[in-house]
């Protein structure tokens, strides 16, 4: 009961933060009466795009958390799902395939060429296509030991973006428009209003909704039969299989759900930047996401959200803004954004060395991760 009421508290906090941010960006930001100082500070330290981007990262990090945090399978190629989701948005929500004309509850005029599927439909398509690829890559490889699995996913995460990168001429067929990418996506239909690329406030609500769906899925799955099977596998694969947990199916399910979330995140990211560009899907995205999961606390939904918001904000806004302020104050010319590599590397190393369970630890995981530490007291803490 303690856990539920604390979750309810979290949910209330989530809603309040969302409402505050929405009011700020939708009504306060365009308001002429806002003092210039406050406007500039906000624009520098917390622009609407950074908040939206952070939410996209939350969606993906929650998906990766299911694979890494719940099931304990290291996935180093998560960016592949992100890319596939993104290209689903590119294919089905733009004029890219201009030789055909397919409309399915699209948000643009019927005469427009290309495939125009409703945004919410594309979300589903992107998620399902990714889940399919998750199963496709998982089925033959999930029998491997954890470190081999990490490498296979890493290879997958390199191949898929390269296919899109070179995809402007696959046997004469233009699959992805290569490095030029696919631009100008359809607006998001949301009842009375179509949300275009610059409606940051409304897009924020859409992303909040998607993140909420992911939080809900994560929490519910964890409590259910599947979630408990994942935790059992994470803790001891052999013991779990002895207890009758079907290893392959359970791991595949983790992969599929994780990939589905990656697809959602991919579609969301495509609408966020209003296009898909092959060179944006690189290895460091996979590692950024991993760092978010690790920093926040593997397996803990709230921890992962915190990690994703924090690191995404630092990456997109915090470091550049800090650098700008620091450099103008002290007259230096230090290139702060280049320190992201240092930051993310250090986050991974230091967290693993000193606080393996993350900022908001999950109690069960804490015990496992410290298994083998000689001086550590392994007895479970009394819950309050």
């Amino acid at each position, binding site marked *: 009961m303690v856990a539920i009421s604390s979750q309810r508290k979290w949910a209330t906090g989530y809603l309040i933060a969302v409402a505050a941010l929405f009011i700020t960006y939708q009504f306060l930001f365009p308001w002429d009466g806002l003092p210039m100082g406050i406007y500039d500070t906000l624009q520098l330290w917390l622009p609407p795009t950074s908040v939206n981007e952070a939410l996209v990262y939350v969606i993906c990090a929650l998906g990766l958390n299911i694979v890494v945090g719940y099931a304990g399978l290291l996935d180093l190629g998560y960016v592949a799902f992100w890319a596939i989701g993104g290209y689903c948005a590119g294919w089905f929500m733009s004029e890219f395939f201009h030789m055909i004309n397919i409309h399915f509850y699209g948000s643009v005029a019927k005469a427009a060429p290309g495939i125009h599927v409703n945004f919410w439909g594309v979300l589903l398509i992107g998620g399902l296509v990714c889940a399919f690829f998750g199963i496709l890559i998982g089925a*033959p*490889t999930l029998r491997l030991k954890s*470190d081999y699995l990490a*490498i296979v996913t890493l290879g997958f995460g*390199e191949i898929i973006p390269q296919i899109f990168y070179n995809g402007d001429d696959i046997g004469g067929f233009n699959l992805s428009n290569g490095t030029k990418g696919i631009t100008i996506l359809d607006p998001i239909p949301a009842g009375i209003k179509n949300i275009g690329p610059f409606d940051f406030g409304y897009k924020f609500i859409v992303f909040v909704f998607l993140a909420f769906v992911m939080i809900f899925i994560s929490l519910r799955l964890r409590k259910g039969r599947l979630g408990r099977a994942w935790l059992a596998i994470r803790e001891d694969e052999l013991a779990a299989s002895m207890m009758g947990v079907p290893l392959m199916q359970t791991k595949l399910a983790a992969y599929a759900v994780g990939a589905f979330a990656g697809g959602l995140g991919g579609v969301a990211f495509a609408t966020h930047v209003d296009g898909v560009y092959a060179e944006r899907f690189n290895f460091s995205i996979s590692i950024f996401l991993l760092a978010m999961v690790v920093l926040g606390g593997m397996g803990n939904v709230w921890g992962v959200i915190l990690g994703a918001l924090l690191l995404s904000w630092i990456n997109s806004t915090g470091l550049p803004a800090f650098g700008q302020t620091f450099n103008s104050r002290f007259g230096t010319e230090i290139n702060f954004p280049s320190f992201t590599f240092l930051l993310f*590397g250090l986050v991974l190393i230091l967290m693993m060395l000193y606080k*393996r369970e993350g900022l908001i630890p999950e109690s069960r995981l804490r015990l496992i991760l410290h298994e083998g530490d*000689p001086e550590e007291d392994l007895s479970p803490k009394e819950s309050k």
Partner: protein
Amino acid sequence: MGKLKATIEAKKFTGTRGQVRRKRIETSGALIIAALMILWLGINLIKAPTQFAQVTVLGLRNGLLYALIALGYTLVYGIIELINFAHGDLFMLGALFSSYFITIWFHQENSNPAGWVTFVAALFAAMLFCGTINVLIERLAYRKLRRAPKLAPLITAVGMSFLLQFVGIKWNGSTPRQWPTVIPHGEFVIAGVIVSHVTLILILVAAPLLGSLTFVVNKTKQGKAMRATAQDQDAARLMGIDVNKTISFTFALGGALAGAAGLLYQQSIGTTNYNLGFQLGLIAFTSAVLGGIGNLNGAVLGALLIGIVQGLNDGLPIALGQKWSQSVVFTILILILVLKPAGLLGKVTTEKV
């Protein structure tokens, strides 16, 4: 868990029905792939024999470089079962160090005797440099996590890779950098195939290194300690082997080879970039897996094969071409892991409780 794992070789017992079926799938899959490979090679060989030989030579040259890096992966994996993601980036630092050593600190820009002496000095300096860094990485990061669950050291290694890439960005700059090279640049022709002096120098440097590594591991006392530690750390400790020292020594060996590879790469290609280590590291790792990770001869064999396949793919008339190079290598990696995880020369390992 780690210490309770033992390696057993499958002998008479052919396995359960599922295992037999899986084996059959694996064998037929491997045969189909081999047949396709032979078909592809055959068509190309008939169509352009000289070009075939030419790209094979180039591929072998790259393969030697991969071998030096792959050995670092395989040595470390063999002894502590860790995929050292940072190893590729260590190679990148080796390349950067060599560039600075030769061009900036000793001002050698031409191929003359002074340049060649600096080259040899740089070889030892780079090996020392990378060996030291690798030992420090092990000491500061991996040692504490030796008994932790597998996920922890793996994630640390990824973080370490990012850290080294950061050093690379700061040292090299974020764009590729061109360097003068001091090794001779001539070439000669054997039966229509051009062999450059760079290839010869690569062989002259790499072959003794590989030979001495084999000697150290198989014939010396330290090598015996390494093999013992790889088999069973606790038993080795009981036999009076200083396990920490042995693991440090292994990291030093792997690092030194990466340093040598860095110098050779920098001198033969002439450009450095901060993310060099990521690409070549992955290719080298693929080589190690292809040969059977943990197996030294396997790593060299795998590296040469990967080098040749990559060379053929990049240079042959009927092939996917260079822009698909990475994808070809990773597809090989995935196929190997799916069809024959133990690699070409590796032993079948079974997890025991």
